[in-house]
């Protein structure tokens, strides 16, 4: 489970304080599917980075699976990140010189998985995203949708408890985006927590829960099917429960 208690992430720019996150308190249950929406600069990516242990809160508490992680050192943090979190990015972020297979193997390389097992599991993960035949191809030889599916295979190969996807369909056309979402949802049905940052209402509506962010704060929470438009969700701000 993800538990954020009064989490702040502040930057000081030329003597002025800028709060990318300004007191977020939120629980995300195991196996939940949560979408995060909000205007540009509202702190969506920052929230995902904090949850994904790439960024540290300036203030507040963060518990992941019952463990306080705000003050872990770099090595421990890296280990938790590697084993529990799968990151999917808008721009895929594959290593261009490595083929699909080796990209998927990367997290296992850092986890010390033996070579043969690494091979086997990467192949299986690629098969799961329908790319069994493309394992030897480099990112430049794959379409955007295929690249994102490789990224998903890589994010899930170590069976993380949570997948964090920052606009995973942002660079894809509808069909490819649909395919990617289906993959992510299949993983979610398998029990993995899924958090998706998106600007796309259709993507957000598929989530069980939608968080609306504004100026670093969660200003509204609603069920996916309740979502009409971002403007409306913003207008109907609810006070913190």
């Amino acid at each position, binding site marked *: 489970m993800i538990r954020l208690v009064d989490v702040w992430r502040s930057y000081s720019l030329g003597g002025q304080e800028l709060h990318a996150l300004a007191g977020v308190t939120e629980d995300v249950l195991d196996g939940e599917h949560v979408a995060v929406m909000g205007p540009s600069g509202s702190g969506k990516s920052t929230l995902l*980075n904090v949850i*994904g242990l*790439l*960024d540290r809160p300036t203030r507040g508490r963060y518990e992941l699976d019952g463990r306080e992680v705000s003050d872990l050192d*770099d*090595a421990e943090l*890296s*280990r938790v*990140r*590697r*084993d529990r979190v799968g*990151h999917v*990015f808008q721009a895929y*972020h594959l*290593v261009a*010189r*490595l083929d699909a297979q*080796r990209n998927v193997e*990367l*997290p296992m*390389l*850092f*986890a*010390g998985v033996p*070579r043969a097992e690494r091979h086997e599991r990467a192949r299986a993960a690629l098969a799961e995203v329908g790319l069994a035949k493309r394992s030897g191809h480099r990112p430049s030889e794959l379409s955007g949708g295929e690249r994102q599916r490789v990224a998903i295979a*890589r994010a899930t190969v*170590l069976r993380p408890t949570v997948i964090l996807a920052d606009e995973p369909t942002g660079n894809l056309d509808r069909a490819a985006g649909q395919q990617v979402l289906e993959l992510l949802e299949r993983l979610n049905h398998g029990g993995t927590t899924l958090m998706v940052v998106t600007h796309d209402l259709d993507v957000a509506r598929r989530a069980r829960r939608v968080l609306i962010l504004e100026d670093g704060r969660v200003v509204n929470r609603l069920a996916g099917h309740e979502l009409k438009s971002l403007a409306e969700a913003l207008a109907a701000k609810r006070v913190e429960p």
Partner: protein
Amino acid sequence: MRASELVAFALTALREHKLRSVLSMLGIAIGVAAVVLLTSVGEGARGFVAAQFSQFGTNLMQVTPGRLETAGIPGMLGGSTRKLTFEDAEALRRVRGVRRVVPTIVGQGAVQAAGRSRDVYVLATTSEAPEAWRLSVRRGVFLAGSDPTRSGSGAVLGPKLARELFGDGDAYGAWVRIAGARLRVVGIMESKGEMLAFDLDDVAYVDLATGMRIFDTDELSEIDVEFDPGVGSEAVVAGVSRVLRERHGREDFTVTTQAAMLETFDAVLRAVTTGVAAIGGISLLVGAIGVLTILWIAVGERTHEIGLLRALGATRTTILWLFLAESAVLAGLGGAAGLALGYGAAGALQLAVPALPLQASPGFAAAGLAVSVLTGLVAGAAPARRAARLDPIEALRAE
């Protein structure tokens, strides 16, 4: 990550930029090749000198007249240097540990025979000389049974001298005239070669009394003392010095052991080798700077990748090692190429100039490789630290 995985990962990165990888390897390769080549020349010279000395045996010491001060010229300072005489030499036989005493007068003179003449060194000595100097006689005897106080043992010729004078004809038993004295050739030496450019095959040997007569002197050029290595050279040097001091009333002579002489030469050549290797080392340093530069640039270019790897769970330490592995592989491969280049050049040089004493020991290859890898690690330290310190989010944002 295991070392093999680090290396494999490093290779994927290095292969991406083949030309620049090869160029920075070349920097290391040239440095290592220079060190190998220059050191093998220096080591060769050392080995050559050591061999030159040891061909006369290592338990030999030399007594020469005059005191060799730090900057002194023997026999020219202090005025009243006394001669070394045959009696001095005989007295040294009393010293414990002394095995053989070889008094010698070194002179130059014309050796004439069969209508030909040749100016050579003439060594007037005793029958013990061959054993002490490790020379052997090819034919006849070496001034055998001679009484050093009386002449009449004939002459012994070096093989080259004999050939020059008699051609293919037989020198043995023939008469020669050495610095005016008519002597029968009683022995021909086995070839010994040169000793530091002094041709030992082109000399004539006569007995001490003859030498004194033809050179009109009773002063010895040197006394060589062969000692029992079991006794130890210091004790023998002390004994020899004491006896001569008693006889001369002062220390107006110099005792030099073969080992001391060898050590002096060796120290000089070692310094030269080190200096020359250091010059080669400078090109290695330049190579190292090349590796550092390339890696620094690579970290800049791959900032995004570093952020990604961190997001996938790589620790700072893993990132550090990824880049250290890259520089170590770069320098290691460069070093291997450099060793091949260095040994190849040494081999080619040896073929071109066979007389050149080159010594490229195989143990050197392992050391060369280790030094290259170490150089790589040192050169890679700064870029690798830079990579490890990158903030994952900022790195990910870089494009």
